[in-house]
């Protein structure tokens, strides 16, 4: 079973849901990994600029610590690595094949855009109050927050994809299912 490349999507969805409940049962917390990045940022600020760290109340909410969220993040990386190695799909690469198809082979271009995307995402997560994993949990708890988030994420993604990949590369044939 572990050696299979993919599992049926209904089974994947079921296991995902089970994992959400498991997180609530074990740790009384929702699965979320974005907090880990904020805590790494806070730790860096604490180490490099302690005065600014003390003065800004943001760092009281996301204090300098290596917490549960960081362990979730490490767990995701190692779980995915374990699965990839077992099913023989582990392959180090810097340029995703579809990016190469749409935007060319420049490593520098990918480097610049991916770091811009990272910075924008860091800001967006703190503005919205969580990442997709957090919002999935809120949706499971029957709140409108997750639905709002998903709708605007979808809008932002579609509009940006249309302009960023300039229409001509919008439908890349070999990747059609």
């Amino acid at each position: 079973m572990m050696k299979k490349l993919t599992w049926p999507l209904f089974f994947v969805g079921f296991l995902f849901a089970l994992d959400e409940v498991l997180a609530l049962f074990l740790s009384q917390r929702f699965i979320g990994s974005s907090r880990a990045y904020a805590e790494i940022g806070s730790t860096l600020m604490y180490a490099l600029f302690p005065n600014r760290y003390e003065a800004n109340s943001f760092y009281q909410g996301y204090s300098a610590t290596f917490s549960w969220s960081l362990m979730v993040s490490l767990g995701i990386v190692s779980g995915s690595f374990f699965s990839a190695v077992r099913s023989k799909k582990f392959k180090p690469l810097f340029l995703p094949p579809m990016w190469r198809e749409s935007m060319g082979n420049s490593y520098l271009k990918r480097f610049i855009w991916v770091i811009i995307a990272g910075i924008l995402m860091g800001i967006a997560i703190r503005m919205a109050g969580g990442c997709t994993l957090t919002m999935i949990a809120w949706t499971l708890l029957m709140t409108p927050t997750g639905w709002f988030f998903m709708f605007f994420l979808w809008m932002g993604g579609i509009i940006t994809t249309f302009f960023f990949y300039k229409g001509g590369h919008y439908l890349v044939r070999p990747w059609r299912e």
Partner: protein
Amino acid sequence: MEGIGMEISGALSKITEVLTTSLQEGTTSLFGPESWFGGYFVGFLLGIVLSKGSMDRYETVSGMFRFFNMTFMRVGMWLFLFGMPMVFLAANLGLIVESPPPYFKPIALSLGAFLFGSSMAIGGYCPGVGLASLGRGALDVLVWGVGLVVGNIFFAEVIYGSTFHKLIEYVSLSNPTWSKIFGIGYITSWLEIPFILGFIMMFLVMLILMGLFDAMNKWFDKTFAWILFRGKSGSNKESKPKKASS
């Protein structure tokens, strides 16, 4: 030069101090909100799930916004379909602790989510997917992760507490849930059941619609693609098939 060396060693000692404190707090048990083992175990399972659902790559994220890879939508539908009754049952059986939902700030949430979607379209990763992609060998995630940390610091230093931040967080509704909006209690109330059943029906309909969309897509490809994608980069280079001679 010596000053820089002192600063670096001071910073490293502070990071070690944070690590030591966190280690003492986090490694005592499998249970509890600060447990490292619990977090790692949950994350490990999630990593396997993301990998086995093909949600560990740029192609799946970008494909969703290009309308030809609906993996995320499908998994999401199944996740909510199974997850909503599971969370409800677990809460009613006392297995999980009720926690209040977050404040609903529509302006901040919609702006943040729009920006999140935009950055997801450019980079091709969200935090969970990015980490799973790193496990599969996508090294660009490391650069993206540095960007994410920088973004968080930028928010803390520039946006947090500013007039703009106050403005977008001005509208704030306290702890709404669908059932509360309709005048019913929180997740442990049995009156939630009609809502959950309603959502399950909706997800089933959406899954059927997605299946139809895929079938239409395939039919479109088969019938018209040779006209639309002729000679374009990445297209299948085949021309219109000739009629077989009798």
